[in-house]
């Protein structure tokens, strides 16, 4: 089972997200992450979907998504030519003894400490999903109080190659 990354440019309407997630659900496609974001065009939102599944069903769900009236354009992201980013917020149990150790790992990954409270601290990390995964591995010995990842948002390098249908 492969991981697939899909960029979908959609009309910025209420209900678009419901339509897309309902479609993935109906076709039995698991969504690993999904982000919706504003673009420079107020009428267009950009959805980035990460899913796992075989190539044939990915192709099918892609064609199905393309058929939605509100889909302007859609393309799978080529990992070699795309920039993928994700944001992580993680709250770790800490004290005077643990804090410097955590800070040292954070520094290696470029994560910043954005809050220190009694008994815990919060780190923020932005990067490629693999980097976030890797970072999580490194701090797995520390107790996680809570965490959240935004899911991937992405774009391709260089000139825009897609055309927005009207």
């Amino acid at each position, binding site marked *: 089972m492969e991981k697939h990354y899909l960029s979908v440019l959609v009309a910025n309407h209420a*209900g678009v997200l*419901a*339509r897309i997630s*309902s*479609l993935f659900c*109906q076709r039995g496609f698991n969504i690993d992450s999904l982000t919706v974001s504003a673009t420079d065009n107020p009428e267009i939102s950009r959805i980035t979907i990460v899913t796992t599944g075989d190539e*044939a069903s990915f*192709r*099918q769900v892609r*064609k*199905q998504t*393309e*058929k*939605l*009236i*509100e889909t302007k354009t859609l393309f799978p992201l080529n990992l070699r030519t795309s920039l993928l980013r994700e944001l992580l917020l993680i709250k770790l149990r800490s004290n005077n003894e643990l804090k410097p150790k955590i800070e040292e790992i954070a520094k290696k990954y470029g994560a910043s400490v954005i809050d220190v409270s009694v008994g815990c601290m919060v780190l923020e990390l932005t990067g490629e999903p693999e980097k976030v995964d890797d970072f999580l591995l490194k701090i797995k010995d520390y107790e996680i109080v809570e965490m959240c990842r935004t899911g991937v948002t992405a774009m391709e390098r260089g000139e825009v190659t897609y055309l927005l249908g009207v």
Partner: protein
Amino acid sequence: MLLTGAEIVAEVLIEQGVDTVFGYPGGSVLNIYDALYQYSDKINHYMSAHEQGAAHAADGYARLTGKTGVVISTSGPGATNLVTGIATAYMDSVPLVAITGNVPTSLIGRDSFQEVYIAGITMPITKHNFTVRSVEELADTLRTAFKIANEGRPGPVLIDIPKDVTVNKADFEVISPVNKAPEEKRLKHLEKVADLINSSKFPVVYFGGGVRISGAEQELFELLKKAEIPATYTMMAAGVLGYGDELNMGLIGMHGSRTANLAVDNADLVLAIGTRFSDRVALNTNKFARRARIVHIDIDPSEIGKNVPADTSIIGDVKKVLTALLPMIEKANHTEWLAQINEWKQKDYRPRDDDSVLKPHQVMSAICDAAGEDAVYITDVGQHQMWAAQYIRHLKTKSFLTSGGLGTMGYGYGAAIGAAVADGGKRPIIHITGDGSFHMNMNEACTAVSYNLPVITVIMNNSVLGMVRQWQKTFYGKRYSSSEPERKTNYKAVAEGFGLTGFKCTNLAEFKEALDKALELKAPVWIECVIDREEAVLPMIPAGGSVDDMIIN
């Protein structure tokens, strides 16, 4: 001019060429119904007994005429009652615009009386749907709905209109729909497909409803004749190729002819045209057309390779594709292949006649004899549907209306009413139903009576849910769980109770007599045919099987 939202609805319907709508009133659509009253000289509204019946009527109207069917209902239960009708239209690619009222904008989201989120409910069974937020956007939203319903692969679109939007006023100007031809996409792979056709020795065409929807009957016929290719079809395309044509091998799939299924199994080339390899056709996707190259021609790119991988495909409107392809096809003869097919045809399943009772195939044959070539046939779902598909001598396109994709019991009467309305009394309208299905929708008899629609309903009464029972008999050790209801319905009496004529027949002579009388009456009629419950639909390929697994007796 300044009009209320309700008047705008009526104006846009007229602008879009709609003169007939089906529906049922209620609180949220009172304003729309008030406008329909005002516009009654331009728009005929047909009220059903149940919104599901109205949705099926709009669907039947659309399938017969090729125009967009329109159905209107109130919010809440009115809207949910449309759901089965919308899903039926969705599965069979029928252009339908469903207009639902909703509670006023200020009450939306508060679980108000008769509020449901119908846009959410119908999301996966419509091509698209809209909630109209203000009267200013109403006219354009309605126009877009008609455009979407008709464009490309047709289907249903729902527009939800809160009540305040129907009262508020906005400026309205008529914009006649421009029949802007969709941008011409260059058709790909034409040469490759032509080469495959020209070099094949054992070609088969397998076609579906797309040929009918695109109006490509003539082009298909020319292709078949020019390259001499035998053809088989799905239920959605019954009548596209005349019964009795030497290249017609009959239905494909689960209850298709042995010849058609054998031909696909032995073909070196299968041209799938306007069809989607459903699980009732390609029962086993690994074995389907296993010796053949598959060419798939369809307007919907998401159908290519969805169920069965195609070696080559052409995406486009079937009529355009075939028109472009025809000059590239060489005249050919496949004498040897046709001889093989004729040999198979000799051995096709043929049920035995018995005039002393009512045999399903003889009933169908008698209907064709009496109703003539011009008749329109509408079915419900079950064994009777399959008998109608198999034994009616389909001669005309768009004249067999049946719920293929969803298999909706209860489709028939509503659809027949829509067909009768569309036809206006010119062609015989024959509704073939089963005792089970008819109990789901017989209430629409009142509609047929109110508007004096000459729908002849033939009830194939085997006293059981025959199709379910046949599966239980074959695959569940004759454990007839909930398929043999002990119903005592007296159809003749019920018919009379509704104010129409009823007949009951137990043998062929009685049936022929009743049918002749019914055709003369030019009014709604029920004819009950008593059928033995052991009658089965044959041949049959079990789900997941191939032609090797075909059950013949």
